[in-house]
């Protein structure tokens, strides 16, 4: 009833190929964008910014990046933390070397540098596949983190190996540093996420995206029908790393402000959680990247809120519960809905079509 496509005729290829072919989807998406751009900036406070929205946006971007590589092109990667570190350290180096450069440009250049590094570490993917590739990317994770900790040039010879962001402004408002107002950091991330999100969605619907999926589904068959594996795999690595690099740049410059590579880009803090995001959200789904990021970012906070603030458990008991619930949910999820939250959403849409008169 609510979600009915009957009567929505497409009279041109353009409207048939739209990202949201249904009017309901269009309305829902526009409302979401209106709220995100015009309502949230006015009501956001620093808790929502620092604890929920900004990490959500940043991890969405990282999840899109990994989803391109793993979900669409089928190349398993555990190097997300290392690539995010490349983005963060590029930002820091560029920021300190060129103090007048606009932060938006710095973030995008950091993405490009990460893309180059991604191509380098993507080269072995031509020879090794599946689990073996996962191990190779794991090596990149450890190598990159070690590198940024070992070579003092990357952290400008600071005594502690910490890198600290300095204040940068956009349109007169600081977006990095401690004095940046919550709405500014939020909008800065949001603009990047929306722009890059659309870019990714369109890439996936283009020839590039289709060749990624061909390689994912069966690389030999893809090669026979004329999809070049070298170019396809490397573009997937490059574009995926670009997204992850931008996420890393934001994670350092906008979100945390001060970073220590071994702690902030650890495999357990970044690489695995981002992989869980795309698995729980849905492999090979844009929506899944966002849902997965939202789930992983808000679950611990939500559980903590319920257990500590509402039920009144002690912080440590709640933490132990949180760890167990976390593991349990993970298993339940994989059993009940292995295709992730995105699949749940499409089931919900199916139901909504027939609601309230299911047959």
């Amino acid at each position: 009833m609510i979600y009915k496509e009957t009567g929505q005729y497409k009279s041109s290829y353009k409207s048939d190929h739209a990202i949201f072919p249904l009017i309901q989807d269009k309305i829902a998406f526009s409302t979401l964008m209106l709220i995100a751009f015009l309502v949230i900036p006015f009501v956001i406070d620093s808790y929502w910014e620092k604890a929920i929205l900004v990490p959500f946006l940043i991890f969405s971007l990282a999840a899109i990046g990994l989803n391109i590589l793993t979900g669409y092109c089928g190349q398993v990667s555990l190097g997300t933390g290392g690539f995010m570190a490349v983005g963060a350290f590029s930002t820091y180096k560029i920021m300190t070397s060129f103090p007048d450069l606009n932060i938006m440009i710095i973030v995008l250049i950091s993405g490009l540098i990460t893309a180059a590094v991604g191509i380098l570490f993507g080269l072995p993917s031509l020879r090794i596949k599946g689990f073996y590739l996962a191990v190779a990317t794991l090596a990149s994770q450890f190598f990159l983190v070690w590198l940024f900790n070992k070579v003092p040039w990357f952290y400008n010879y600071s005594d502690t190996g910490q890198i600290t962001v300095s204040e940068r402004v956009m349109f007169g408002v600081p977006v990095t540093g401690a004095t940046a107002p919550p709405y500014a950091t939020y909008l800065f991330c949001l603009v990047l996420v929306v722009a890059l999100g659309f870019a990714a969605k369109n890439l996936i619907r283009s020839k590039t995206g289709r060749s990624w999926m061909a390689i994912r589904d069966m690389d030999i068959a893809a090669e026979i029908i004329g999809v070049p594996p070298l170019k396809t795999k490397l573009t997937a690595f490059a574009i995926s790393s670009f997204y992850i690099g931008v996420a890393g740049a934001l994670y350092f410059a906008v979100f945390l402000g001060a970073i220590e590579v071994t702690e902030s880009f650890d495999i357990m803090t970044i690489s695995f959680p981002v992989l869980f995001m795309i698995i729980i959200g849905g492999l090979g789904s844009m929506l899944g990247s966002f849902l997965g990021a939202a789930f992983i970012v808000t679950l611990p906070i939500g559980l903590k809120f319920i257990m500590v603030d509402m039920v009144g458990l002690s912080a440590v008991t709640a933490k132990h519960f949180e760890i167990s619930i976390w593991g349990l949910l993970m298993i339940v999820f994989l059993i009940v809905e292995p295709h992730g939250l995105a699949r749940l959403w499409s089931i919900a849409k199916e139901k909504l079509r027939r609601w309230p008169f299911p047959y």
Partner: protein
Amino acid sequence: MRIKQLLVGITAGVIAISSYVEIAVADLKFPMLVYRTGAYAPNGIPNADGFVDYYRMINARDGGIGGEKIVHPECETGYKTQVGVECYEKNKKDAMVFQPMSTGITYQLIPKATADGVTVYSTGYGRTSAANGKVFKWVFNAPVTYWDGASIAIRHILKNNNGNIRGKKIALVYHNSAYGKEPIRTLQTLATKHGYKLMLLPVDHPGQEQKATWLKIRKARPDNILMWGWGVMNSVAVKSAASIKYPMDKFIGIWWSGSENDVLPAGQGAHGYKSLTFNAPGTDYQVHRDIKKYVHDKGQASGDGSHFGTVLYNRGLFQAMVQVEAAKVAQGIHGTSKITSAMYRDGMEAVNLSAERMAELGFKDFAPPFKNTCENHGGSGLAAVQQWDAKNKKWNMITEYMYGDSDVVQKLIAEDSSKYAKEQKIALRCN
């Protein structure tokens, strides 16, 4: 069907959350960032228990500070920076002081708390150059800094070698993080001054894997080892040193590497291991008797109460005592018991813990006296060396409290803090 259940569940959840109303508190809020889980829990638990027991004792014995009850909401960080930020944002409103108990989180909070106007007190850890109050208005790290610690350890080694350590080899086994890297520059500067050779041996988080480190030590046989470790890293290092038969009295840890649970796993092998400290061990103080009477005997001990009197528990008492004292001083300065975050900072800056004042508070001879001033947030800079007696399972103080090499340390602090002030465009205070 499933969708219906899901919807009902979500609706119930939303109603439950929205029905939750935050209770406005007029009390003094001392938020606690603790870690009772994770790789650093063995050290985090006794320390947090010390804090909680002291706050409870003050509430029970004195009815709070100047009549205002202390509330101390705990937030579990697991020693993770990102969670620390979440905890800070959640609790920063009307907070008196944050004690992150992690150098990483301290670095994270320094700019944020400065912008928000909240005090950060990193007792003997965190950013060393925050001792310069001219630059770091909201950050305090009294009574002693890592750079003091490094030079005190070298002074102790000098004393044991009749003042000459030229050509000796000194190894630093450190947690490969901002925390562990803190002393390196001081040790390098001192190396050129005293002519010893410095050997740097990083240990990666969480610190369980140290085989390569100790293999190198076995080969190079340094004359002394210093350690900047935390969590499981400490006990693994002490055990490894014992297993290669390294002379334990040549092995000196920083004050965070010298608690009971660091040495107990190594058994008799740990006998003679030394560490720095800025507070005394044991339970022979008035504050312990009060805690026993007002908290433990009523069955209100934090945790299981088993850490009573251990090194890190006692340090928690000391830290909590300074924080409570700062609130009292602030109440005196501003003539009101309901102090704000900004008033609290003024109190912290005027804290003067003389020997007499500490005795009044039940901490007679517990720690060397110190006072904060506008310029100096780093305290006295005094620390002593304690040694582990594995037979009686107790720490013994083996030296007086001593100063570090203040010429070297002060110069480094001035350099580092002025670099920070320039980067962050901070105008100097206290002129």
